[in-house]
């Protein structure tokens, strides 16, 4: 089978389901950057993110026969990615009691400041949060999971998920402010 470099996702996936390595390589390279983006939001470190990305791709290739052709690959793959990233982080995710969470006062977030943030800036900001804060922030704000789902995924009470999110946002606002002052 000749390889079309402009093949659609559906065509690629159809060939990948047959176990064709060349098409799997194409699929990998097509979604590599996206996958790294998702993984780095959780792992921050590029090397760790690559390990997660490769794990997720292997899982996806192995589970591709369960993938329904009428669905989009990206959301399906993102679920695997997020779960793989969480798996690799679970050891480090420490449940923080509410009393241990420092109170951060509400601050104003400037829209203009937000627009200036690059991927590196965002990762730098997240790095400064407690791990569980930035994981909850990612899960809720970026990947769209509910607090109930997050509670199940991280084995924490739903209320804790809400608290971590609030704290994460407050901390991020503060960090953005201080970064702007430096600028």
């Amino acid at each position, binding site marked *: 089978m000749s390889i079309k470099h402009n093949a659609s996702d559906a065509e690629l996936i159809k060939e990948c389901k047959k176990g064709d390595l060349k098409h799997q390589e194409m699929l990998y390279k097509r979604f*590599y950057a996206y996958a790294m983006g998702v993984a780095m939001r959780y792992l921050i470190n590029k090397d760790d993110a690559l390990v997660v990305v*490769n*794990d997720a791709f*292997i*899982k996806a290739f192995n589970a591709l026969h369960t*993938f329904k052709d009428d669905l989009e690959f990206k959301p399906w793959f993102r679920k695997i990615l997020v779960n793989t990233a969480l798996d690799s982080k679970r050891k480090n995710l420490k449940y923080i009691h509410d009393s241990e969470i420092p109170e951060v006062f509400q601050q104003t977030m400037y829209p203009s400041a937000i627009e200036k943030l690059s991927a590196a800036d*965002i990762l730098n900001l997240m790095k400064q949060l407690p791990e569980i804060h930035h994981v909850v922030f990612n899960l809720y704000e970026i990947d769209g999971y509910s607090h109930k789902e997050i509670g*199940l995924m991280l084995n924490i009470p739903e209320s804790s998920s809400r608290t971590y999110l609030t704290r994460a946002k407050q901390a991020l606002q503060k960090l953005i402010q201080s970064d702007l002052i430096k600028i």
Partner: protein
Amino acid sequence: MNTLDDKFSNHIKAVFEEFDTEGADYGWAELRKDFPSKSSHKPLYLWLSGIAASLLLAGVFLFNTNNNDSFKNVSQQNNTAKATPIAPQKTDSNLDKATNKEINTFDKKIVSAKIVKGIAPANLEEKQLIPVSITDTIINSNEPGRDSANLLANVVAVKPDSVKTTKPTILEFLQKENEKENKPVLASAGKKAREDKKNALFDVYTATFLNYYADNPVKVNAGAGFNANIRINKNVYLSMGAGISETNITYQSSVPSSLSNLSSSAADAALINGYVVGANGTKLDARFLNIDIPVAVKFYPGKSGKYYLSTGVNSSTYLNQKYSSSISGFNPYSNSYSDFKGKTEESNFKGFDFANSAIFAIGINQSLGKSSTLTFEPFFKPSLRGYGDKNIKINTAGLNLKLSLGGKK
């Protein structure tokens, strides 16, 4: 605030949606190291070779042990013969020559003479019988009531000058002794044979045991096999054997890192179907159909032989290994739970784990007639190295019921 929150979140989404990074070629090269997974199934012949080598080693050990016993017996006999050769050495008859030859030659003839004596008919000619009788006398010189050589030695010692004159008397005496002892000799041969049997007792056993690890659920399993018990000395036996057993364990906590791949495969199956999974909701099952090769030392503290303490190690090889995972997923839209099965890994005729668990046991023997014994043996086998490809740690506690046939301690 919400608008700004949304703006912030949307900006992050947009930034990472368009995230661009190099390294796809490197990443693919890295992935290819693990994908497609290379089959680690070793050929069947390697597994069989391992089993054959183990059995060969066990056989060689058994053979050597038995040979050493024979050697020890004959050496003792030879030493005894050298220590008490007074009467035969002081004569120059054919009897003396034959006897000296028998005594001084440490070869298989002695053993064969020993064997012949037990079945020699009583009406054999004197010259055939005498050496056999003397050999027998010397061999059994430690046994009370049958020590004619010592008796002769005593006679000679008391009357050293009368050796020559007593020669015909000695012959007659020996002949009579032989006739007298012909029946006891046969009886003693039977006794000797029983003693030989005691040097290697065999038993068959069935085992019922509980497998557990950490705070995971306890599983009941069973097995059966046989043992050979080789006597090291009066109170110590070396027990070796082989048995087949089924070993199951379910992990719900303290999951070994070697099973993490299976764990995430179950979670993936749930996620792919739109379910959310809990962090600790995965169940992992490990199942082995294994051949156990226990090697233990049994110590009988008393003379009665009713109790023993045993300690050793167990090694295992696997007819079948199966690892599987499952997880309960939550569907937030239908507010329902559903179970999902993850990847199953299975292999046949693979692996050998030397000393994967220790053995501690106490045996209580119960006599069942003249030559059979039923033994109740509670045991504990703490994990040392883990079972199978995934090094699954399993502690085992249970009870062996052993039936020993053809001999007693």
